[in-house]
């Protein structure tokens, strides 16, 4: 369905941004494997990004509601 396709596209876009951000933040010199500390850093980075996404999404929704009430 269109709905599903959009959800997938949406998820792909978050994953792309997450990879970029967390790779840049966690991998200074790319070696021959991801060390366990690299993996920990990436996992934390991506968890925090998803947390941030949820908070931002809620705050944005609330702002839109407030603006609609004002007009």
């Amino acid at each position, binding site marked *: 369905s269109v709905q599903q396709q959009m959800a997938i596209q949406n998820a792909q876009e*978050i994953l792309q*941004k997450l990879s970029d951000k967390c790779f840049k933040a966690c991998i200074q010199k790319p070696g021959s494997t991801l060390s366990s500390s690299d993996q920990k850093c990436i996992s*934390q980075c991506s968890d*925090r990004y998803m947390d*941030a996404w949820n908070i931002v*999404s809620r705050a944005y929704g609330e702002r839109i509601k407030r603006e609609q009430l004002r007009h």
Partner: protein
Amino acid sequence: MSLNSLANDPELQKFVAAKELENQLAAQVHHLTNICFDKCLESSGNVSELSSRHTTCLQNCVDRFLDCTMLITNRTIQRMQQGR
């Protein structure tokens, strides 16, 4: 149903407009998360859990960014009307 009459179908138009709005809102959330993550979390390195300070910063960041956009939009409209 021909292509033409399909394109003019009000139900379809409403559906497409709603989908587009949803897309725009999702794109804006991506954009805001990207900016506010950098403003509020980047400098604090590896963060094992969001503190209430991070949460407040993220919420303020969304509101201040939208304030900033509104300020600039109004200012730009003014400038355009003055024909500068």
